[in-house]
């Protein structure tokens, strides 16, 4: 990867890490449990992108397996927590 591409990937990684801040705000201030679940789901989506960009920076193919596992477990966890919320049991 050439130097401008490496700089662009680093900048993209910085922007994605900054984008975690609105999600954390929504998770902290969200009025209902579903808001917090949505924030967690969005954080998982952003973390997949962050791991993929780290793969590009570190030039290591092992990170893509971490991203796949994160996507799978995030999906299953979202389904389980949504089922829990929809039965009106409050946190």
């Amino acid at each position, binding site marked *: *990867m*050439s130097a401008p*591409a490496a700089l*662009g*990937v680093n900048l*993209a990684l910085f*922007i*994605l890490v900054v*984008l975690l801040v*609105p*999600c954390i*705000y*929504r998770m902290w201030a*969200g009025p*209902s*449990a*579903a*808001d917090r*679940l*949505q*924030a967690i*789901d*969005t954080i998982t*989506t*952003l973390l*997949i*992108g962050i791991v*993929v*960009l780290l*793969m*590009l920076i570190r*030039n290591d*193919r092992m990170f*893509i*397996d971490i*991203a*796949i596992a994160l*996507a*799978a477990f*995030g*999906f299953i966890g*979202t*389904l389980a927590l*949504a*089922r829990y*919320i*929809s*039965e*009106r049991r409050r946190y």
Partner: protein
Amino acid sequence: MQTILEIIGMVLIAIGIGFNVIGMIGLMRLPDIYTRLHATGKVSTVGLCSLLLGAAFLMPSAALKLIALAIFAVLTLPVSTHVIAAAAYRAGVPMRRFSRDDLAAKYSGGSAGGRELAQQGDDLFKIERSAEN
């Protein structure tokens, strides 16, 4: 050839970052959980897929797994958005004021506050319509 692949990959990554930024602005600014799900559910799906395809152009040795992960994201992220919206509706999370709840007559187990607010919204809508006519 390498330079062309890098340019395509960087353009795709920039598109993905732009979509993610728009989705996070929607997550901060919109008034209601349903509208916020509308903002982030689709936008972050497109953003993540564009990011993954850009990474596949930048690192062709991992392209197969990246494309498989993109297909998995397209399949699962709308499902999780739908599930969160259904859970919020069943748990009775109120809607924004003056928005219609079309499911309120069908499901009596919906949110009571949501029904009242929807009724107010319907009344206001009728008043506006009669004022126009």
